[in-house]
């Protein structure tokens, strides 16, 4: 069991209001990702749940018990740090088993559980090594092993993949998602990488300036962003925005259209523009087009789209995919 509820959680550092009244429910067994730009408070929120920071106000409930005054050890959560934070003077075996040792589990039982976790993570050959003799990916797996061996109520991941190279990151992303599903343990995962968020999460929490902007499944956020911030943050490349007369004509103070929802044509269309840059990725072509009255618009064409810099092109937004926002930036 591991249902985590936040009720009006606040945190201030001096005069800075880092977390401003966050309410959130993380269902048992779900994989929730906190995502947002740097400095939005996502790591702080995770550390508040972990108990590594003291909340200034509000309540944190784990399985219905208010843990706001309890130290990290009593909360029954485990955490994977960005820096791995392994104990450099201990072998992999002792690193993974440290939590069990602190809990007073006897050696035989400890060894059995460590062996089990090591087998699950392909760490068995490295059990007697020290972290210094491991690669980045192996260290990350040790950190995960340390987290799972105690069978916590929930895993907390603080940007665990950002120190790994791109190829390894994709692998580990899959491995973590698979592991979480097979253990059916609640997980809260912090990242600034929205691809990680989209691919791993059951539910994404978008944060900005210490506030929750929107909570929803990846597709909900992609298809129905609540406001301009979420619309701009989720999706890659970013959504295009237009204001003024063009927006008014389409029924909003601001309108948004994703690059993949623009039809491209060399003959006719709604907006006329000049190709500024063309990125050919093989499977896709990203075109950066200057359109009068909007500015630079990103468009995504499937496959090869033979356009050169300086070519004239027409864009037509697909009507069913136009997002409309009011003067406050809320979705209409």
């Amino acid at each position, binding site marked *: 069991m591991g249902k985590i509820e936040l009720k009006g959680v606040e945190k201030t550092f001096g005069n800075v209001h880092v977390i401003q009244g966050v309410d959130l429910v993380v269902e048992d067994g779900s994989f929730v990702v906190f995502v947002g730009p740097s400095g939005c408070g996502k790591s702080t929120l995770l550390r508040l749940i*972990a108990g*590594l920071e003291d909340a200034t106000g509000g309540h944190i409930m784990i399985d219905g018990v208010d843990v706001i005054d309890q*130290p*990290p*050890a009593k909360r029954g*959560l*485990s*955490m994977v*740090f*960005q*820096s791995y*934070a*392994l*104990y*450099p*003077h201990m072998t992999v075996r002792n690193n993974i088993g*440290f*939590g069990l040792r*602190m*809990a007073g589990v006897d050696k035989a039982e400890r060894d059995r559980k460590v062996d089990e976790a090591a087998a699950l993570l392909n760490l068995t050959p490295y059990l007697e090594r020290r972290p210094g003799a491991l690669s980045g990916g192996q260290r990350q797996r040790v950190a995960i092993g*340390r987290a799972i061996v*105690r069978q916590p109520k929930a895993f907390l991941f603080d940007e665990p993949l950002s120190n790994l190279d791109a190829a390894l990151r994709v692998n580990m992303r899959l491995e973590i998602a698979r592991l979480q599903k097979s253990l059916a343990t609640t997980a809260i995962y912090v990242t600034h990488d929205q691809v990680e968020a989209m691919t791993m999460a059951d539910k994404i929490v978008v944060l900005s300036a210490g506030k929750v902007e929107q909570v929803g499944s990846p597709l909900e956020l992609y298809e129905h962003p609540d406001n301009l911030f979420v619309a701009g943050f989720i999706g890659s490349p970013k959504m295009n925005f237009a204001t003024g007369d063009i927006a008014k004509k389409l029924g909003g103070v601001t309108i948004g259209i994703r690059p993949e929802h623009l039809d491209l044509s060399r003959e006719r269309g709604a907006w006329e523009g000049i190709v500024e840059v063309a990125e050919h990725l093989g499977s896709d072509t990203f075109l950066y087009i200057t359109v009068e009255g909007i500015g630079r618009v990103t468009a995504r064409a499937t496959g090869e789209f033979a356009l050169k810099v300086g070519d004239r092109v027409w864009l037509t937004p697909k009507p069913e995919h136009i997002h409309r926002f009011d003067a406050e930036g809320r979705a209409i």
Partner: protein
Amino acid sequence: MARKISPAKTAFWTVIGWAAGFVVFFPILWMFLTGFKTELEAYSTPPKFLFFEWTTENYQTILHQRDYLHYALNSVIIAGGSTLLALIIAVPSAWGMAFSPTRRTKDLLMWMLSTKMMPAVGVLVPMYLIFIWLHLLDTHIGIIVLLCLANLPIVIWMLFTYFKEIPKDILEAARMDGATTWKEIVFVLTPMAIPGIASTVLLNVILAWNEAFWTLNVTTIDSAPLTQFIASFSAPQGNFWAKLSAASTLAIAPIVILGWFGQKQLVRGLTFGAVK
């Protein structure tokens, strides 16, 4: 790009380096040589450098007639005891200041260091009176506590600097793993800080071993360390230079040996944070 250094330049600076080293080392060498002279030769003009009657008479005298071992043991007890006591106080203090600093931590550190700026003689009279009242004169416990307090600011500063270098994440990981504060210090912080603690210990032992002001003032016989032993050869009847030198050689021998084996740690300790 590495700078080019000509062989002549290298030779020049090597000579300068050795010369400076020799100047610094000369008094110690002179002391060592004088210890093997007779009292008469120790005074001779012009001074004899190497060509004199080598004798071990001084060593025999101070070892048999004067109780070197008694003083040496006291030095060990005082240096060891005050270092141990300082560590017991300093490790948790430095831990607190390094990992849960408050707005006042910096001021507190500066204040502690400022106590080292005051000349010890300034507090001699009050300290002496306190020692009389508490019956601590010429006791091991008295001088141990005193030297511990005298060196505590430096010990805390050094440990603080080392602890600062330990990534906070690792201690937080221990906390998430269910370690109490005490277990965190014992199982995670201390093993990781061993090099730092070792050089702190070494430096503190040397400081306490060589400390002369307080040991000369508050000890006489029972708890008198080697500093008293050396000073006793400078008597009203005259200075016994040869015996004084032999005694000094014996007094610094243990610490020189310790320092020799620990010099790597010591240099690292003294330059810690200055170079990576």
